[in-house]
């Protein structure tokens, strides 16, 4: 017989039912495989890179997740309009929605993922646990919470601290750790509300909470011919708010023997449901004892670390499996090579309990200083809004050893420019550099236990030098655009005149720079009594090359109005320029209350003319699925309400005006 390969079902046009970095990630592989790509996008994503990079993009009507990426009918319509013959759901959104998988399949479109049946069985955490118990995979004691049951007795049986978990949950939502009985009712109440809101299913269960265990998960791959293998483990213990931020492969706590045992358990569990495509079996690990947590029937956010250490392209594997190919290799063909670590950069504020901090990524420039993989969905100018997950990028480093990977990743993160909004980047860097992390002492309570620095503290000299770099860049730009006398040295004087001045603020610190031109062309700079002599090698095009008191330094600098984004050898810093002339119109803002972040007005408790007392809640803003109270800063009278319930407001937008205080 002629050796002709028959492809049962060929994918030629793949629609990615997702957005951001994962849409780009999937499109990258699709392009490599000669498959054309279709993006779908919500209104707010119209200018996102994943939309621009797709061969074709279909606009969805609506702004929020529910209105767009979660709207099965709209996504199916997009499939039909685009003529896509396959759908990749990515992670999140509809990726674990069996009804969606069914609808796609019903249209004769290939579903790149596990069967609807597998999704259904694993989607409910309680039923998944039962299946695992039957397959002899160890599970933690758990109990479903029925509405009319005695929760307290159930919790007491499992023992405190106990974990309240949403059965349909994921991503840490609807999850609460309860330390003692008195806190149980409140935790169940709020978890139920969150689960209902997030997943449309308020089923909860209780599970034993292992505070100091490790989160270790096994990547599995199965084809439609019954071949099922595992691609080793990932450890994802570094979490905040029950969400992973640093993941790695392999786990420093897993030896060959344990790896084989956990891998076998995962494969056995998957076999019982006839799993195909890529999936992940999650475990808690304590010493060499492990317990099943859940199965994720999709590609994981952290899949790149597995790709780095195995050399596999998991998206390619998914597509080939969906086309009907056999895996074509066996478990023993896979090898672990080196160590990979991924860090997730989020628009969030580590110093404010890791709450999301939406804003605009004014500057995005991946480090080029060392080898690293950037899976990102942004470019300079991308807005991290309130409608979607605030992840900006994943940065993955693959090195011969774990320690090298961690140290390099920390430096790559530091040398990456992500400016214009608050991120967890500095926190990630600090975490990767803790002795505990470097020693592999990683457990799910790592952040509380080790407490890495939440923010970077700058030395005065670091602020000074960044301010000097900004002055030099700004000066060069001003000179280059001067309408007259452009060739005369900047700030040239023939007699004695006062020094030029430039002022900046960094948080509450102000930096007053006084500088004058020397005959040599150098600048004599004084900041709060400290003298710097600076010679300039290059400036004016966003790259400052200068010598400060004998030390040669390079800075990348950009600005947006009065905001200056600097990036030097120690990383990013944002300075705000104090205007030369105060803005007299700023007076109109006096007595105004402004939105602390973009959001929508949920509740309005006051009207114009009301007498209000200091601390009184005037307005509640809903942003990033959380409520923010706007309170009266002092006793006074409401002058004007600028918004009404339901209004979308921008960061810094004026909400309420109080009458001006009598001086």
């Amino acid at each position, binding site marked *: 017989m002629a050796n002709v390969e028959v492809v049962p079902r060929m994918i030629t046009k793949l629609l990615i039912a997702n957005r951001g970095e994962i849409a780009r990630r999937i499109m990258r592989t699709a392009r490599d495989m000669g498959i054309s790509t279709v993006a779908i996008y919500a209104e707010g994503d119209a200018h996102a890179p994943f939309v621009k990079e797709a061969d074709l993009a279909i606009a969805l009507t609506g702004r929020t997740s529910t209105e767009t990426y979660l709207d099965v009918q709209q996504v199916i319509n997009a499939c039909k309009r685009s003529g896509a013959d396959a759908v990749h759901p990515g992670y999140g959104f509809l990726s674990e929605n069996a009804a969606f998988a069914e609808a796609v399949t019903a249209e004769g479109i290939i579903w790149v993922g596990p069967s609807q049946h597998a999704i259904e069985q694993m989607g409910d955490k309680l039923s998944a646990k039962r299946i695992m118990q039957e397959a002899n995979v160890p599970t933690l004691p758990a109990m479903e919470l029925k509405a009319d049951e005695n929760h307290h007795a159930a919790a007491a049986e499992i023992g405190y601290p106990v974990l309240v978990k949403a059965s349909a949950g994921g991503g840490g939502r609807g999850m609460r750790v309860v330390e003692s009985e008195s806190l149980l009712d409140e935790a169940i109440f709020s978890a139920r509300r969150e689960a209902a809101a997030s997943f449309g299913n308020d089923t909860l269960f209780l599970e034993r909470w292992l505070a100091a265990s490790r989160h270790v998960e096994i990547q599995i791959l199965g084809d439609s011919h019954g071949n099922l293998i595992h691609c080793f483990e990932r450890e994802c213990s570094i979490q905040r708010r029950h969400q992973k931020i640093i993941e790695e492969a392999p786990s420093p706590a897993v030896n060959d023997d344990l790896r084989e045992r956990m891998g076998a358990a995962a494969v056995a569990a998957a076999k019982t449901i006839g799993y195909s495509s890529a999936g992940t079996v999650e475990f808690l690990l304590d010493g060499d004892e492990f317990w099943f947590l859940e199965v994720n029937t999709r590609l994981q956010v952290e899949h790149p670390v597995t790709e780095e250490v195995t050399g596999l392209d998991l998206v390619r594997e998914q597509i080939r499996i969906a086309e009907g190919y056999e895996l074509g290799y066996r478990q023993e063909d896979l090898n672990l090579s080196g160590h990979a670590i991924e860090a997730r950069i989020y628009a969030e504020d580590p110093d404010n309990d890791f709450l999301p901090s939406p804003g605009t990524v004014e500057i995005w420039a991946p480090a080029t200083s060392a080898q690293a993989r950037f899976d990102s969905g942004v470019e300079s100018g991308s807005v991290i809004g309130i409608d979607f997950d605030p992840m900006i990028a994943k940065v993955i480093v693959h090195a011969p050893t774990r320690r090298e990977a961690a140290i390099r990743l920390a430096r790559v993160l530091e040398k990456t420019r992500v400016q214009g909004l608050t991120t967890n980047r500095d926190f990630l860097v600090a975490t990767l550099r803790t002795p505990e992390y470097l020693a592999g002492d990683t457990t799910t309570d790592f952040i509380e236990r080790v407490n890495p620095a939440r923010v970077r503290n700058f030395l005065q000299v670091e602020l000074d030098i960044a301010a000097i770099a900004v002055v030099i860049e*700004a*000066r060069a730009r*001003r*000179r280059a655009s*001067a*309408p*007259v*006398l452009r*060739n*005369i*040295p*900047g*700030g*040239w*004087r*023939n*007699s*004695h*005149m*006062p020094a*030029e001045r*430039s002022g900046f603020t960094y948080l509450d610190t102000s930096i007053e720079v006084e500088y004058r031109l020397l*005959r040599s062309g150098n600048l004599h700079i004084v900041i709060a009594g400290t003298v710097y002599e600076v010679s300039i090698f290059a400036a004016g095009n966003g790259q400052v090359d200068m010598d400060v008191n004998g030390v040669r330094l390079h800075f990348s600098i950009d600005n947006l109005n009065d905001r200056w984004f600097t990036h030097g050898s120690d990383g990013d810093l944002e300075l705000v320029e104090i205007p*030369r*002339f*105060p803005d*007299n119109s700023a007076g109109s803002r006096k007595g105004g209350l402004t939105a602390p972040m973009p959001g929508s007005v949920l509740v309005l408790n006051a009207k114009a003319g009301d007498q209000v007392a200091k601390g009184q809640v005037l307005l509640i803003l809903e942003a990033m699925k959380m409520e923010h109270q706007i309170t009266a800063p002092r006793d006074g009278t409401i002058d004007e309400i600028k918004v009404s319930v339901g209004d979308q407001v921008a960061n810094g937008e004026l909400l309420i005006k109080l009458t001006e205080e009598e001086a």
Partner: protein
Amino acid sequence: MSVLESSLDTRSDNFSKNLSDMNEMLDTLESLYSEAAEGGGEEAITRLRSRNKMPIRERISMVLDADSPFLEVSPLAAWRSPFNVGSGFVVGIGVISGVECLILGHDPSVRAGAFNQFNSKKLMRGLEIARENRLPYVQFVESAGADLRGDGGDGDPEAAIQREGGHFAESGRLFYEITELSKLRIPTISVVFGASTAGGAYQPGMSDYNVFIKNQSKVFLGGPPLVKMATGEDADEESLGGADMHTTVSGLGDYLADDETDGIRMCREVVAHLNWRKKGPGPTLSPDEPVHSAEDLLGIVSRDLKTPFDMREVIARIVDGSRFEEFKPLYGPTLVCGWASIHGYPIGVIGNNGALFSESSEKAAQFIQLCNQIDVPLVFLHNITGYIVGTDFEQGGITKNGSKMINAVANSTVPHITIIVGASYGAGNYGMSGRAFGTRFTFIWPSAKIAVMGPKQMAGVMSIVQRAAAERRGLKFDEEADAKRAETAEYWAEERSKGLFATSRVSDDGMIDPRDTRTIIGFVLSTCHNAPVEGTKEFGTWRM
């Protein structure tokens, strides 16, 4: 265009000596600049600050575009006089909102910003610069008016009156000239920082735009004491001439600022709306640096001006790329003429390499006409002891030919920029476009000496004349007394001929560090190009 080669030996004893002499003079210059910048002194400045007011140099720095250059005019006026070095006014050319402006500021820390003969001369020079070069005129007014104390306010009143060479009847021309600027479509802007009384009141009075500062500007023809003396009225300053009153009632003020910073911001806004367009062309050539180092300029000129040097060594260090196309190099070689550019502006250069002879004078007259024919500005580099004297030369027509050169210089209409590098004596000063010959800008090096003739020659001439007079009258000539008299005469002639003396009398625009020559010429060339740059074909009758 070829690049000038240098034959300057920077390792020679002569160069070292010149360099150390020059550095000594620059040290003096530096300390005088410091003194000038101190204004009325620390105590006066502290008092000013306590009233939330800024010293004049801070006000000016603040109005300038960030990182733009500023050229102060006659910063050492009134040196060696009873008045403060600098004279109490700061005058300069600076860039406000992208526009080159003539800026004048009264220094309230020096005798309350009052007028004296030095700062009046400086102010008039400022108005002249604004008029000739078409620069918007910005004045920061805060002046007690005329200094009623007279000649420095101390000393012997009789001696003071005897020294006076002028009279009140001649005063007030500045008000005439401010309104003349306005007529010439050159906007005039006043920011009134404090009291501006009597004559001072006409400074804003004659201006196109007036910015007044709340609770600070006070403008009246007569202050409360004069009102009391004249009419018996008891007036308070605010209702008599406060900023609020003038901006809401009298209409003398156009803009009311909250404070000094706000007033300066308003001044910048006014300039920004002027829709200013320079009438001259912009730079057209490559503004690359000279290939020879400007540092060498410090060692070229000897303290004893009898030691000659080649002016090409100076040219090679100030013109773009050291490029110079010499005109008539083989004819009249004591004068170097040629074409070059500075900061991209084409120029004609005329420099001295010895006394002026008939040939060199005629060559200059021709060259000046050629520059006028093609609208190219002229730069004069002085090291001139004068026109050659002697029977042969007179018979050869040196007076006639020298007059041709003076005719050409006087009637030329392209901008002239004069740099006095070394000597500038007698009619040589005139022929080389000295201060009285309509030059746009004059700057002098510390090595400059300017006089009717060299001090030694002058003392010698006086001695010869007196000896002849004694002989005529049959008197015995007292050699000892003559020697003493000659020594004294030479000493004072020397003192008066020194550059510092010239610059302190506002007979130039300032003494400069030789290394700044290129920058300053580039600066003022740009300044000149605010006005049209047009040569003339019309000269006085050529004496043939």
